[in-house]
């Protein structure tokens, strides 16, 4: 699960003042969680991470191998390279590193979001995030 449209709105609202970093935390028992994470990083290798990221969120849960290759084609990626990457689990190590970080940090839900280190678990309305971000921006001005 992801906070898709809410995160998008946050990034648009605070453009230039905010940075978004993605950690993969694919759930072990969902069919396409891992391959979708692989797909996002395979697209990154071809310079289209965010395009694929957005598309995956939009089309989820239709994330089987054939659909993913279709999305790669839609984004104009080299589909042979892309397929080889997801089939060969090229980014398994990076994904496992993120998963280990998540379990080390005692995270059990997605989305889990940290705003300057302040933890927000689960989906929340935009206003909830806005309040925290405005506080962070206000605090920043003190320095």
């Amino acid at each position, binding site marked *: *699960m*992801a*906070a898709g449209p809410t*995160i998008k709105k*946050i*990034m648009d609202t*605070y*453009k*230039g*003042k*905010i*940075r*978004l*970093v*993605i*950690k*993969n*935390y*694919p*759930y072990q028992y*969902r*069919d*396409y*969680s891992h391959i*979708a*994470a692989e*797909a*996002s*990083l395979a697209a*990154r290798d071809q310079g289209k*991470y*965010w395009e694929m*990221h957005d598309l*995956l*969120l939009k089309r*989820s*849960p239709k*994330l089987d191998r054939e659909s993913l290759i279709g999305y790669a084609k839609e984004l104009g990626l080299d589909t042979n390279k892309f397929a080889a990457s997801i089939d060969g689990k090229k980014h398994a190590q990076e994904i496992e*590193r*993120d998963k280990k*970080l*998540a379990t080390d*940090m005692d*995270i059990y839900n*997605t*989305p*889990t*979001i*940290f*705003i*300057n*280190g*302040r*933890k927000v678990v689960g989906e929340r309305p935009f206003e909830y995030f806005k309040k925290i*971000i405005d*506080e*962070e*921006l206000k605090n*920043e001005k003190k320095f």
Partner: protein
Amino acid sequence: MKKTMLVMAFFLLAVSASAEEKRYPVPLGDSPTLGPLDAPVTVVEFIDFQ
């Protein structure tokens, strides 16, 4: 006077509550990132696309 004390107590409580908000350090590494690297606010999202 009593009212003033109450208001003051409220503010003290509010200030200490936000100051004690726990912050978790999250190593960013070379994870996918969007927006200026020196932005005053960094949002880290742990995501599952499915």
